[in-house]
């Protein structure tokens, strides 16, 4: 018996963040905090990003990850967390393509070493 849940590792975003921090990488964490209407990932879904743009997890079906990563790079530098909002009422959402027509709020923060 080695790791009792080897398959769960694809979902262990916080474990990934911990590993990256221990390697001295810059790390940001994005967490879905609120959703309205049809949204692909529920509240509590997480995406972890490192300074080179490597990512594990998700905060949508792949629609807004690009925009979140871009913001995450800034937050890795500044350390100021930000609440990002995506939705059909938001011009940016069309640009980044939240195709499901839902609305989602994502909290993006730097993981302190």
């Amino acid at each position: 018996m080695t790791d009792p849940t080897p398959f769960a590792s694809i979902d262990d975003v916080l474990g990934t963040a911990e590993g990256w921090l221990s390697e001295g990488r810059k790390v940001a964490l994005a967490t879905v905090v609120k959703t309205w209407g049809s949204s692909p990932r529920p509240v509590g879904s997480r995406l972890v990003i490192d300074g080179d743009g490597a990512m594990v997890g998700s905060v949508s079906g792949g629609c807004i990850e690009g925009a979140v990563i871009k913001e995450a790079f800034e937050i890795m530098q500044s350390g100021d967390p930000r609440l990002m909002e995506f939705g059909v009422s938001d011009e940016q959402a069309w640009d980044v393509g939240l195709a499901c027509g839902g609305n989602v709020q994502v909290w993006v923060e730097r993981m302190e070493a």
Partner: protein
Amino acid sequence: MRADIFSKLQTARRSKTPVTLVDGLDGKTQALVYADKVDGDLSEAVVKEARDRLRDNKSGVAEVSGDRWFFDCHNPPLRLIIVGAVHITQTLVPMASIAGYEVIVVDPRASFATAERFPNVTLIDDWPDEAMEALKPDSRTAVVTLTHDPKLDDPALEITLKSDAFYITCLGSRRTHAKRVERLKEMGFDDAAIGRIHAPAGLDIGAVSPAEIAISVLAELTAVLHAKPIVAAAA
């Protein structure tokens, strides 16, 4: 996230201690709320909200005491206890693990419950009633019996039917299940208790192979977890 908060959060997750991470959306406050203690400076109202949400496993944003907070509930993973280290179990274990369950296999028969047949899973070789008494199924636990053998399935059921397990199923034909119902009645269980058993096991998707039966069981379990009405497949 503050390093000390993250470290404590990971410790709680590893020890399977329920905890709510509380984030002030002004970016100024971060704290951890456990059932019996608080790490951080929070008002009583915020602590209460965090504990209520932890109990219901309901993460989300709320306005409390004039500020907006994100309550991020970290409960231990859902558990799936499988009684019977049979062929179906070999396919159900990896599928349920991918779906996020902590899987535990119970089988006292040494030739079935081998690490070779079941790598990377918790194997318990105690008699099922002893194993279930130790495992204490709760409202975040599903129990599936697959041995076909009343000597093994029934003792597990006897404990499980007295628990809050959210999903219970037993493999077996309608005839096998009818006999099981008779035995459970003799053991003193009423119709309401016996009715908690989903039988026949799994959704009717025409499953034949062990892997397909595992899919149908995991599908039914998922439907019950999210309280979706189970619609019978068209004949």
